[in-house]
């Protein structure tokens, strides 16, 4: 905790709570049919993106799958912008065109939210390639799921990254399942970092339920990547509390299992550590939580009241 420092710790705690409350807001709004289509929440995984993105500078880029709200919020989009997108409103971060799976933010170098499993991996590689090409000091964080790690694009991207010394960090958010399939029923080897050596790049195992570990590990990994312009592969152990998407009943796992993971809750455990440091107390936590809830409530209001895209939006942006 010492290395993190109080200010950063508070900021990250806030981010984790923001994400969680935001996602809860999504769940509710989905039930109320304000949000439609697919909707995948990040609840339980907060420490992964928060810990990794804490080290980013404005030059760095990042990209992920359809499970993409958190990265948007952490990277600088407002809850209003992201929530309005969930609702399909013109005030949304992509003007209502993308919805839950396609959060993007050009100003924050957030290359978005992608629906095809594994499809974003080479794009993240390309973002890092561009940074290097333009001689900018930067990395691209490329998030994907355990299920995505067996797609062909993973292999092709890791090879290219290593071969060309591209400063990209491949982050497998190993939340134990790809939809209803436990990772050991889909991956011959669920310890995905084991693949790194074959590509002659560094591989890391990171505890993604613990923000302290995640923050520390990513700090070192990102620094190393920037220093040596070498890619890395990180397998982050984590867990999603909710079903794969809102429509998934989650019958493939036991209540006990879920409970067991919830005991390692990243927000709670980080809060406890902060409390030990005397950086926050229950009251402070409650105030923060209240603030985040209010922010989400405001975002929901905003989203509800925002107008639909005008009809000409349909044919706008087909071509640049």
């Amino acid at each position: 905790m010492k290395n993190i420092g109080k200010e950063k710790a508070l900021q990250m705690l806030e981010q984790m709570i923001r994400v969680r409350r935001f996602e809860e807001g999504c769940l509710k709004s989905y039930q109320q049919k304000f949000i439609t289509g697919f909707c995948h929440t990040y609840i339980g995984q907060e420490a992964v993106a928060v810990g990794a993105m804490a080290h980013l500078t404005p030059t760095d880029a990042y990209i992920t799958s359809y499970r993409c709200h958190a990265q948007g919020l952490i990277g600088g989009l407002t809850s209003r912008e992201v929530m309005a997108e969930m609702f399909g409103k013109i005030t949304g971060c992509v003007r209502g065109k993308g919805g839950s799976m396609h959060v993007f933010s050009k100003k924050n170098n957030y290359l978005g939210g992608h629906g095809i499993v594994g499809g974003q991996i080479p794009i993240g590689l390309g973002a890092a390639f561009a940074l290097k090409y333009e001689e900018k000091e930067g990395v691209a964080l490329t998030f994907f799921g355990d299920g995505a790690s067996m797609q062909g694009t993973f292999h092709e991207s890791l090879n290219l990254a290593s071969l060309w010394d591209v400063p990209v960090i491949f982050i497998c958010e190993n939340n134990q399942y790809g939809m209803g399939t436990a990772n050991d029923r889909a991956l011959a080897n669920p310890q995905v970092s084991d693949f790194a050596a074959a590509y002659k790049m560094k591989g890391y195992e990171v505890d993604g339920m613990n923000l302290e570990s995640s923050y520390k590990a990513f700090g070192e990994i990102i620094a190393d990547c920037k220093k040596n312009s070498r890619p890395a592969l990180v397998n982050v152990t984590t867990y999603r509390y909710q079903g794969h998407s809102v429509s998934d009943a989650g019958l493939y796992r036991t209540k006990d299992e879920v409970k067991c993971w919830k005991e390692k809750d990243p927000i709670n455990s980080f809060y406890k550590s902060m409390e030990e440091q005397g950086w926050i107390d229950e009251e402070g936590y409650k105030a923060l939580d209240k603030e985040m809830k209010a922010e989400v409530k405001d975002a929901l209001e905003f989203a509800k009241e925002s107008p639909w895209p005008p009809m000409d939006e349909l044919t706008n942006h087909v071509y640049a």
Partner: protein
Amino acid sequence: MPITEFRQALNQALEEEMIRDEKVYIMGEEVAEYNGAYKVTKGLLDKFGEKRVRDTPITEAGFTGLGIGSAMMGLRPVVEYMSWNFSLVAIDQIISNAAKMYYMTGGQFSVPIVMRGASGAAAQVSCQHSHNLESFYAHIPGLIVMAPSTPYDAKGLLKAAIRNDNPVIFLENEMLYGDMGEVPEEEYLIEIGKGDIKREGTDVTICAHLRQVGFALEAAEILAKEGISAEVVDPRTIKPLDIDLIADSVRKTKRLVVAEEGHKFCGFGSEVSALIHEMCFDDLDHPVIRVSQGENPLPYAKNIEAASLPDVQDIVAAAKKSLYK
């Protein structure tokens, strides 16, 4: 006849064919333990076991290729794509291998594989999840492409597909899975390449497949109230295409509207339009009218998504236009 849900009709077809032939097996994401993302394969793992109902990793190119290789060795895989959007990562296997194998091997290795799954737009799943790939697959010689609109057709065609020795692209639609329809208890097959008149009429022909058939029938109802008698032709298989059935109808009605959910440019509607103009040029009182999706990626927001997708009103308007009304 029992009233059966669309997905259940598919399920029956799979079960019956698996009982009939031990070489039939099912493979895809979430088809086994999860009982299928859309529950089409529900209960089959319990009935047939892990050997024949297999959950795959999310590697469409890999398991499609695996299916093709096993089909070359005599098995009869039924591969589920959770949706056809995801077939794009496997399309080289489908086109370069499945479609061309029988020809390229001089008739030695046939590839009896059925690839099936949800196709086209669902409800606001945005543009990466809303592909209509009829025109891609139908473009390639060597593939059969099916697109049933009713539980009855779905069951009869899927059984025929599994028994056929060629690679079959079997398109379903998420919005149809819950549809109910009559399905006989006794076994039946539907001949591949035979279309079906879903409603008879005399003033205008509407050619439609998959979800558009329902829309066309609704449109026909509305048109009927205005004194226009529409004939609804459902080709059921996109390739081989029962163009004669459509042409015969057009020779009677002198007008054709082709409704499809996908994009217009080089779409299925273009083909039907080109063929009908070639075959019925002198019969037509109006050029063929194509009803299709807007020429933009499908957006998420409800209002503009709806505006982009073809619907009942679009078909009604097109039919009237063909009658200069």
